């Protein structure tokens, strides 16, 4: 089922944006209020609950010992999945992940993988035989737009607060997950000619295009994803990247304050 929006709301939103305003009074490049609680789930090796406005997501990290992929015998394995459960929206249905959930999981995964967030070499136990598997499970409880940033930030926070359960597997002492970089995503929507950060659901519904930019602490780009059928100009893209670096630094500061690891 497609997200629908009434014509009157749509016109109202267009008019506001034409006047350079947003429905909740935010500036175009202002995030909603973000509240992150690390270590929210006791049964997980690491976890975080994020509330970004009314969007509400829980991310849990579980670890296990398994076989490496044959082409990377010395590297741990990271598996990211997202569940858009029917609790979160009247339009989500139970069952295996559909394309939305798959894109979401892959975009978050790309930021973490390409950003070399986890030092996977350190997750090797026995070359070619035994490595640590890191499962990143993202559970969306309430959907009010911009899952990319909510899930990405919660996943990053959860990883920064993950303890490798070595004792349980008789592999020595428990220790923090080796995290080398802090990658954060920032997502922009384009509505007519206006670009805005962190779209709410009603803004997402009328957006023509979407761009997610993930940066690391050096301000380097590690992953990008453009979505929807609308287009961006080259200038638009450059503008988003610049904003993403600035906002990313603020978000990284917030994430670091929630972790005992010094990254």
């Amino acid at each position, binding site marked *: 089922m497609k997200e629908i929006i009434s014509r009157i709301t749509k016109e109202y939103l267009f008019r506001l944006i034409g006047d350079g305003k947003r429905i909740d009074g935010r500036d175009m490049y202002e995030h909603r209020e973000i509240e992150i609680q690390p270590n929210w789930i006791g*049964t997980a090796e690491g976890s975080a609950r994020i509330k970004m406005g009314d969007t509400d997501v829980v991310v*849990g990290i579980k670890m296990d010992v398994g076989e490496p992929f044959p082409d990377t015998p010395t590297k741990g394995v990271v598996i990211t999945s997202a569940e858009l*459960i029917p609790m*979160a929206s009247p339009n989500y249905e*139970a*069952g295996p992940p559909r394309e939305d959930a798959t894109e979401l999981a892959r975009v978050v995964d790309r930021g973490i993988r390409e950003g070399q967030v986890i030092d996977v070499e350190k997750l090797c136990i026995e070359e070619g035989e035994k490595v640590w598997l890191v499962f990143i*499970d993202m559970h969306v409880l*309430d959907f*009010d737009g911009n899952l990319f940033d909510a899930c990405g930030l919660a996943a990053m926070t959860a990883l920064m607060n993950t303890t490798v359960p070595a004792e349980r597997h008789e592999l020595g002492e428990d220790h923090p997950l080796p995290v080398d970089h802090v990658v954060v995503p920032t997502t922009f929507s384009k509505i007519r000619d206006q670009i805005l950060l962190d779209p709410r659901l009603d803004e997402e519904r009328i957006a023509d295009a979407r761009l997610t930019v993930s940066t690391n602490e050096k301000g380097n780009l590690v992953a990008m994803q453009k979505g929807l059928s609308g287009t961006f100009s080259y200038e638009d893209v450059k503008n988003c990247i610049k904003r993403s670096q600035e906002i990313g630094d603020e978000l990284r500061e917030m994430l670091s304050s929630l972790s005992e690891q010094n990254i």
Partner: protein
Amino acid sequence: MAMDSDIKLIDENGLRLDGRKFDELREIHIEAGVLKRADGSAYLTWGENKVMAAVYGPRELHPRHAQDPSKAVVQARYNMAAFSVPDRKRPGPDRRSVEISKLLSEALEEIVFVEQFPRSAVDVFIEVLEASAGTRCAALTAASVALADAGIPMSDMIASCAAGKIDGHVVLDLGKKEDNFGEADVPLAIVPRTDRVTLLQMDGDMTAEEFDQAMELAIGACKEIYEIQRDALKRRYSTSLEDYEDNEEDE
């Protein structure tokens, strides 16, 4: 269940592993109306358990052949998050969650005035985010509050709690280790206003007398839980009333 083990579940002072007495519940907290998209919702913590329940409906039921021309269908979906248990659970339904979903649907259908909404569905989604024994009782307790929060016409809520047997004693509300190493577990749910039993399961080994004791303990606890449910609703709606009055003053 019914495993012989060296684990002592009750100490010499008659206290359980977490320091509880035989007839003592773990701490329960419920908050109603916590999700924006859902028509009704409730978040419940019960000891280490964390459960979220959301209600959508009454709404059109798909597929159409599942519709009942005489009443609404209550569809509960009990789901455990991958990270809710010590060993990661593969996402999606397994036999256990399918069975629990069925029992919860049947129990909830009893309290909803389903005949008012022919051909429609009342969907109840329950997510177990952290599990530590007694999740089906927690799920049913939370789901009832979410239904009430959604304004679904219903005769009463359902309160649910388990009792069981550990180290030869009948006790209330088994914890994780007690569930694993105890001798019997009896999850029960009642409609508190009528005391009618709407969910009952039992596994393990106990005498008929012990079962009576367990039932009595669990029914007593359900009444206590019912008050916590009612309190959650009162807190939710009395706040709204205060907000309303504040707004009136502002004008």
